[in-house]
């Protein structure tokens, strides 16, 4: 899994509490082959799991991706899968994370729900 900036995520990144940001940043891009192999058509979501966490995202095809690689917009959804280790340089490894994918009917969490389990996140 790799994560990075997309135009839509960037355009909404100073308005993160709105639905458009959730829509832009909770997408998981896959190659066409992987999308078909996982049987994700028909509006199903995808559950992505790493050694550090799990997250449900909306899958999309990106023809520029090689098979076996997924791309996510940077943000709280992608970061659910990133580990805290900085390898001695202060920066966590945000790209090149091993993940497992499966189709799911669980909904994608909106930005507020992503933080409601944490202290104080009530308003």
């Amino acid at each position: 899994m790799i994560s990075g900036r997309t135009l839509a995520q960037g355009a909404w990144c100073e308005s993160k509490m709105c639905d458009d940001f959730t829509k832009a940043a909770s997408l998981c891009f896959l190659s066409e082959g992987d999308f078909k192999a996982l049987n994700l058509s028909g509006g199903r979501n995808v559950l992505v799991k790493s050694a550090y966490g799990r997250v449900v995202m909306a899958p999309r095809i990106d023809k520029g991706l090689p098979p076996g690689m997924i791309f996510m917009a940077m943000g709280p959804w992608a970061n659910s899968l990133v580990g805290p280790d900085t390898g001695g340089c202060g920066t966590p490894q945000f790209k090149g994370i091993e993940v497992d994918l499966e189709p799911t009917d669980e909904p994608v969490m909106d930005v507020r729900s992503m933080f409601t389990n944490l202290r104080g996140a009530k308003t």
Partner: protein
Amino acid sequence: MSGQEMKTRVEEDVLCSFCGCLCDDLVVEIEGNKVKNVRHACRLGASKLMGHERIRTPMIRKNGKLEEVSYQEAYDRAAQILVNAKRPLLYGWASTVCEAQKKGILLTEMVGGILDSTATVCHGPSILGIEERGLSGATLGQIKNRADLIVFWGCNPAEAHPKHGLRYSTNVCGFFTPEGRKGRKVLVVDVRQTRTAKNADKFIMIATGSDFEVLSALRMFVAGKGEFVPEKVGGVPKEELFEAADMMKAAKFGAFFFGLGITHSRGRSKNVGNALALIAELNAHTKFVVMPMRGHYNVAGIGQVAAWETGFPMSIDFSRGTAYFNPGETAACDVLSREDTDAVMVVASDPASNFPRGIVENLAKVPVIQIDPYENPTTLLAEVVIPSAIAGVECEGTAYRMDGLALRMKKLVNSPHPSDEGVLNGIIESVKKLRGTEAEAKAPNEASA
């Protein structure tokens, strides 16, 4: 509003306060006290300047809910949290101006805390790589006027720095490059076919995490030792890498831009070091320069201000009474993952979104003070929320472009909120007041003892 106030005025040569390109050619139409239209900006810049939903008043969390308070109350509460903390972390600083960054460093020193910038989750490894290897640099103006080969490695300006190509690199016409895109070659190296890759003359798709090996292979070719390169490196056939190395050597003036594809993947600062070594070695054959594609508009600025104020560019720990720099130990993610900080002040950034989830969980355990124009997930974790004016729109200030050029941001409209610098001054005064009262309270006891 009267007709006079509603008059539209047009500001030219406005700077965009979104990405590190810091474009200075925007034309902004202002009606009354509102930005009505933005011309010449990309989608990212236009969206920023047109404005979004704002935090309206300062707030303090009481019984789990954020309640409106005055600015003074918010400053006092923030000061109390910082003074009472043993090792507060003051984090962010990339999306504000140098004047505010300077105050932030002063405040961190006063409270014996750690100052870190968003560079640590971005181009921090680049800074470490540059410290190790040195960098053969240039301004974007030199690149525009001279470069006949542009290399984008692990970066996607088509989405992250949309006007980079038009203003500085691939497509712009310069003094010695009058033909623009036609007169230039573009080489893109990435792990996926990005929008940027689609505009390339040559695109090399490498395996994830193989940047270091591929860079090493290119160095071998440049050094004339291609016979030792294996048949495939990072999934790329040897001949393709040979061609890429040839393309680089054949350039009259090459410019190598790299992004988070290098700094966020396996190898991190070592990848950057290897890229810088490749560029240094290319200079034995031709002129080649290299530049990190800095993300936030003034993330380069905090590096500069911190360096001249403290001697270090980021991750600076003042808890020993003097500046100490050791990323891997003193970077924001490190102190938070070790739970080695007991209060966090966040300025112009959103660690709740941008840090790994496990670290965000630790952030939620300590009191958080937020200074920002906008509500974001960090607001949901904050004890104290202080809204500020948007630099470059509602207040002026200095920012550094990705090539290290200092530019002056304009004020376009009035704001009901103080600038980040104003807010920090308020907190600094409250810290002084609190320390003064503490000293006074202690003084009689000391006299009697």
